[in-house]
């Protein structure tokens, strides 16, 4: 009796379709990617049920955590313009190179006096925890007020839009710290702002 021969099939697969899909996905992810910036001040935002997304442009974020205040504005041109205004206000001189270096920093928390040293640091050094002492916001030396003012003017000049301020606070932060920032906002007649929260997963 002749043996039934099992035909041997080739193991080679047509990978064209798989390759197509892979590159399609790749293109999608490259185009939608906004690289995650390392945060110098990690905060754990409280959860809420609101589902409104923060806009991408014309937004400034005041980060409050561990008793420190950090500040950040979206947009490189706005940051350069803001630095110009601050340098005028505090009589500091920055070179073009320093301005460009500053413009890539998303969030910072150093007093104006240390700004030059801060700009000279490399990106990794800047984000070391505890290196940035926070922006002073006392009534005697209210630098946060000046930064916010500069950022608002810069946004108005460049984009002709009102800057939207948002507070990104750590959940455990005590209320007086938050109050201090809200008071600075209100002193500039900013009565509308956003609180950044994370999404609450399930209803309690």
């Amino acid at each position, binding site marked *: 009796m002749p043996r039934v021969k099992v035909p041997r099939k080739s193991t080679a697969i047509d990978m064209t379709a798989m390759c197509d899909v892979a590159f399609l996905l790749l293109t999608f992810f490259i185009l939608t990617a906004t690289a995650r910036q390392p945060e110098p001040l990690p905060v754990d935002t409280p959860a*809420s049920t609101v589902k409104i*997304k923060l806009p991408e442009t014309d937004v400034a974020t005041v980060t409050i955590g561990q008793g420190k205040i950090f500040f950040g504005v979206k947009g490189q041109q706005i940051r350069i313009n803001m630095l110009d205004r601050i340098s005028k206000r505090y009589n500091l001189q920055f070179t073009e190179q320093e301005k460009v270096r500053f413009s890539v920093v998303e969030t910072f928390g150093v007093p104006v006096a240390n700004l030059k040293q801060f700009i000279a640091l490399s990106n990794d050094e800047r984000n070391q925890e505890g290196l940035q002492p926070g922006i002073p916001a006392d009534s005697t030396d209210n630098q946060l007020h000046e930064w916010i003012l500069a950022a608002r003017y810069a946004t108005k000049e460049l984009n002709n839009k009102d800057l939207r301020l948002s507070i990104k606070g750590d959940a*455990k932060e005590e209320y007086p710290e938050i109050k201090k920032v809200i008071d600075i906002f*209100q002193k500039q007649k900013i009565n509308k*702002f956003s609180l950044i929260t994370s999404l609450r997963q399930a209803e309690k």
Partner: protein
Amino acid sequence: MAELDTSSGGSKKGGKVRSKKQSTRIDLTAMVDLAFLLITFFMLTTTLAKPQAMDLAMPDKDEDKPESKLEIADNRTMTILLGQNNRIEWYMGLVDNPKTPTVDNFGRNGIRKALIEKIKEVRGITGDPKKGLIVLIKPSDKSSYRNLVDILDEMKISDVQTYAIVDITNPEIGLMKRDGIYK
């Protein structure tokens, strides 16, 4: 696996010299590998979850215009005091004569129940759906930022139209001290 097939149909003896017919199949394995590697990289580095923003409007704080302060009926106002250890206390009316001061918790069985109850009650009193409950949120120094966001969230959940964050006063701190949620 896929391989580059370069074999021609076998050489024929004699005859014309034919140019070799090359196969168009290419080994795609490496390319797919690379593509998936990059996909993985971009998937992990993108921030998919954009932060949520809770909009908040504070009452105008104009020291020059004290007359802009609005008088409101005290049977419509509910004051929520945020104390320590995630405890809250609420009362209706004025602090000199607080009606039903209650120490409460956050969450569904705590403040939300009271809020929904009071919304109904006030609507019954005024008889006008536009004149609903007014909530004054007064965070004390002992409360945390989480408490503030939680209570604002409760306002959104129970659909309170009018609410404001107001500075706390001494009688209210006294009230909280009495009930042991502020030391």
